[in-house]
C-alpha cells in the first residue's frame, strides 16, 4: 500500500507542473456556466409599453386605461399617454409594444350602441407583449358588450339624463344596477358543483432554472478533468516509465490505486473550485459542500477509470485520444451539461439520467437542492463506487495484459 501513496504523491507533483491543463479544465465550464448565468440568471419578467391616445377623454375611456394598469397586468405593461403622431413613430421605431387609439365619441357610441372603432397597432418585432395587449383589449370589449346587454335600461336612463344628474337619480340607477347584480349573481356564479378544496401538501419550491444548470456545469469540469487525467497512462507509456515499472517489484494495482487517489484529489480541486463559486453565487448552504465534493470526487474516479480503460484498449495514443474526446461531447449533451435534465422532456431526461455523468449530475442536483446535506441515497453511492472499482479492474487487466509492456 505504501507504493500507492508514492504513486499518488508522484502524480500530484507532476500535476502541479501542468498548470495549463488544470486551467483549461476549470476555465471551459466556468466560461459556459458564466454565459448561461448571464443569459438566464436574472429572473426578469418581460415588460412592455402601451402607448395610448385617448381622444375621448371620458369616464369610459379612462376605465380602459385603468384596466391595462391594474393588477399583474400592470407589472407587464406600462401605459403611457401620447399623441397619435408620436405614438405611431415610436411603435414604428420599436420603442413600444403597441399603440391604442381611443377615438373621440367612444363613450357616447358605446352607450348608444352605435359602431365605433378602436385602433390597436402592435410592434411586429415583438411577439409576446403585443399578443397580451391584443387579448386584453378583446376581453375588455367583450366585457363592455355584456355589460351593455345586462344594463341596457340603466344605460338608456343615463344617456337620456341631463349633463348634471341629481344625487337621487344616480342613487336610483346604482340601486337598480345592484338589484340586477343580485338577481343574476346566482346565475352567473351558480354553485352547481360543490367543490371540496383539498390543499395538497406544500410542495417544495422548484429551484430556479439557472441553479439546475449548475450540477451539469460541475460535471462538465469533472468530465474534462477525468478524461485528461486518463490520458496519462498513454503519456507514461510514451515516457517509458510504465515499462520501467514492470521491471520493478512494485505492484501495478498499487500504482493504479495511487493514480486513482491523485485523480480524486485533482478532480475535487478542479470541480471544487467551480463548485465554491457556484455555492457563493446561488447561495447554497455550505453544509452541502463536503458531501457534494465527495460525490464529485468519487464520480470523477469512476469516470477516470472508465476513460482510462477505454483509452488503453486502443493501439495508438492518437486513436485513443480522438475516440475519448469524441465521446466527451455526446456525454455532456446527454448528461445535462448544456440543458438541465429537469427541463427536458421525460424520455430525453430518462436517457440523460442513464448516462454516467447524467446520473452523477442528477444526484448532485438532489444534493444541492435538498433541505439537508447528505441527501444522495446510499444505492447511488454504492453504484458509483462499484463503477469505479470495475473500471479500475479493467485498467489493471489492461496494464497486465500488455499495455504497460509495449
Amino acid at each position, binding site marked *: 500500500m505504501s507504493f500507492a501513496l*508514492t504513486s499518488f504523491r*508522484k502524480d500530484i507533483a507532476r500535476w502541479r507542473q501542468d498548470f495549463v491543463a488544470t486551467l483549461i479544465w476549470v476555465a471551459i465550464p466556468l466560461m459556459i456556466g458564466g454565459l448561461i448565468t448571464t443569459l438566464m440568471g436574472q429572473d426578469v419578467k418581460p415588460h412592455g409599453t402601451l402607448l395610448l391616445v385617448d381622444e375621448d377623454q371620458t369616464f369610459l375611456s379612462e376605465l380602459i386605461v385603468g384596466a391595462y394598469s391594474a393588477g399583474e397586468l400592470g407589472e407587464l405593461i406600462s401605459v403611457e399617454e401620447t399623441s397619435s403622431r408620436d405614438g405611431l413613430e415610436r411603435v414604428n421605431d420599436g420603442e413600444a409594444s403597441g399603440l391604442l387609439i381611443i377615438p373621440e365619441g367612444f363613450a357616447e357610441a358605446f352607450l348608444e350602441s352605435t359602431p365605433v372603432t378602436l385602433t390597436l397597432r402592435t410592434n411586429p418585432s415583438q411577439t409576446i407583449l403585443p399578443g397580451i395587449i391584443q387579448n386584453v383589449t378583446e376581453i375588455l370589449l367583450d366585457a363592455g358588450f355584456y355589460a351593455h346587454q345586462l344594463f341596457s335600461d340603466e344605460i338608456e336612463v343615463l344617456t337620456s339624463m341631463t349633463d348634471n344628474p341629481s344625487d337621487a337619480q344616480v342613487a336610483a340607477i346604482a340601486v337598480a344596477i345592484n338589484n340586477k347584480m343580485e338577481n343574476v349573481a346566482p346565475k352567473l356564479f351558480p354553485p352547481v358543483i360543490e367543490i371540496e378544496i383539498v390543499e395538497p401538501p406544500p410542495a417544495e419550491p422548484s429551484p430556479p432554472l439557472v441553479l439546475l444548470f449548475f450540477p451539469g456545469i460541475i460535471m462538465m469540469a469533472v468530465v474534462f478533468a477525468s478524461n485528461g487525467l486518463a490520458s496519462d497512462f498513454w503519456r507514461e507509456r510514451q515516457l517509458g516509465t510504465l515499462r520501467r*515499472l514492470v521491471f520493478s517489484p512494485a505492484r501495478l494495482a498499487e500504482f493504479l490505486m495511487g493514480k486513482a487517489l491523485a485523480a480524486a484529489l485533482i478532480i475535487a480541486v478542479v470541480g471544487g473550485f467551480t463548485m465554491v463559486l457556484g455555492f457563493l453565487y446561488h447561495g447554497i448552504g455550505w453544509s452541502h459542500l463536503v458531501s457534494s465534493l465527495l460525490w464529485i470526487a468519487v464520480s470523477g474516479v469512476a469516470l477516470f477509470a472508465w476513460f482510462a480503460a477505454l483509452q488503453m484498449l486502443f493501439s495508438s495514443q492518437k486513436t485513443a485520444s480522438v475516440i475519448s474526446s469524441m465521446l466527451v461531447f455526446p456525454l455532456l449533451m446527454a448528461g445535462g451539461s448544456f440543458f438541465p435534465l429537469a427541463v427536458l422532456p421525460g424520455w430525453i431526461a430518462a436517457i440523460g439520467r442513464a448516462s454516467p455523468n447524467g446520473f452523477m449530475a442528477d444526484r448532485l442536483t438532489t444534493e444541492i437542492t435538498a433541505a439537508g446535506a447528505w441527501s444522495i441515497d446510499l444505492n447511488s453511492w454504492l453504484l458509483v463506487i462499484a463503477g469505479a472499482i470495475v473500471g479500475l479492474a479493467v485498467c489493471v487487466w489492461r496494464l497486465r495484459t500488455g499495455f504497460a509492456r509495449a
Partner: protein
Amino acid sequence: MPHRDTVWFVAMLNVQELSKNYGDFVAVDRISFSAGKGQVFGLLGPNGAGKSTTINCIAGLLKPTSGHASVAGHDIVSDGKAARRNLGVVPQELALYEDLPAVENLRYWGKAYGITSAALEKRVTEVLEYIGLSDRAKDLPKEFSGGMKRRLNFGCGIVHKPPVILLDEPTVGVDPQSRARLFEMVEAERDAGACVLYTTHYMEEAERLCDSLAIIDHGKLIAQGSVNELRAKLGARDVLQLSGHFPVEPTKQAISALIERGNADLEFLAQEEDSITLTLSHASQHLPAIFEAVAGTGGSVSETSLRSPNLETLFLLLTGKELRE
C-alpha cells in the same frame, strides 16, 4: 539455484536454453550464459539480433517461450518478484518523468524497489553525486541535456543498489563525454561487486568494458568467452584490406593459390566491387606474393590496410557481415 562453474564463481545471472518465439519467428533461440559477481558480461550483436528481447525476458517484461533464467538465484518466472527486486534495469530508451524533478525521479524509483524512507534519502544523495547531478537535483529532466538524462536514467536503474544490473545499449545517442562518464559508472558498479549484463552493438564498448561476452546474431549465440578467448579464435592472424582496380573473383582465386602454397590460414572476410578483406597469419610477410597475384590478374592495388583483428573481425568471420549492418 545459481549455476556454479567453479568453486569461486557464483552466477548472479544465469540463463539456460532461453527462447522467445513470436509465432513462427524465433527472436531468441536457446541461448545460455551466466555472469558472476563483479563481472561485466557483454551481449554483442547487431540491431535486431535479439539482445533487447533477451534483456526483456530476464527483466520480466516478456515471458520466455522456453528455458530458464535466474537473478541472484531467483527464477524470473516462478519467483519473479524476488528476481526483480535484485535487478536494476537501465533501458535503451529513456524512462524518466520529465515533469518530475531529478531527485523525485530517484525517490520514486527507489520506493518502487521497496527502499525504506530512511535509507532512501541517503542513497538518493549518493546517486545524485555519483551521476553528477547534485547541483541539478531539483530541476526537471525536460530541461536536461541528452547526456544528463542518460545519467539520470542510469541512476534510476541503480538507486536500489541491485546486485545485478541490465544495461540495454545505454550509450545510444550519447555524446562522447557522457559516454565516458557512463563507462566509469559501469566500471564503478562492477568494482563494487555488481554483476552487469551490458548489451551493445559497439565493439569498442564491449572490448573496453566486458570481462566476458557473447556474440549474438539472429537470436543465437554464435560465440562466447572472454575478450581474449574470442580474440584467440582468430589465432595470430592479421586483417588485410586491399583496395584498387582488379577483378574480384579472379584476384581471390590467385591469392588463394599463392597463399595456400605457403601454408598460411587464409580466410576471406568480405568483398566489394573494388576491395577485398581477408585474414591471414603473418600477413605482412605475404604482401609481395599478394601484390604479385593481383598484378597477375591485370589489376592494381591503390590502398592497403593491415591491422590486428578485433571482435568486429570475429563477428565478420562468423556471420559474414559487419556488426553495424
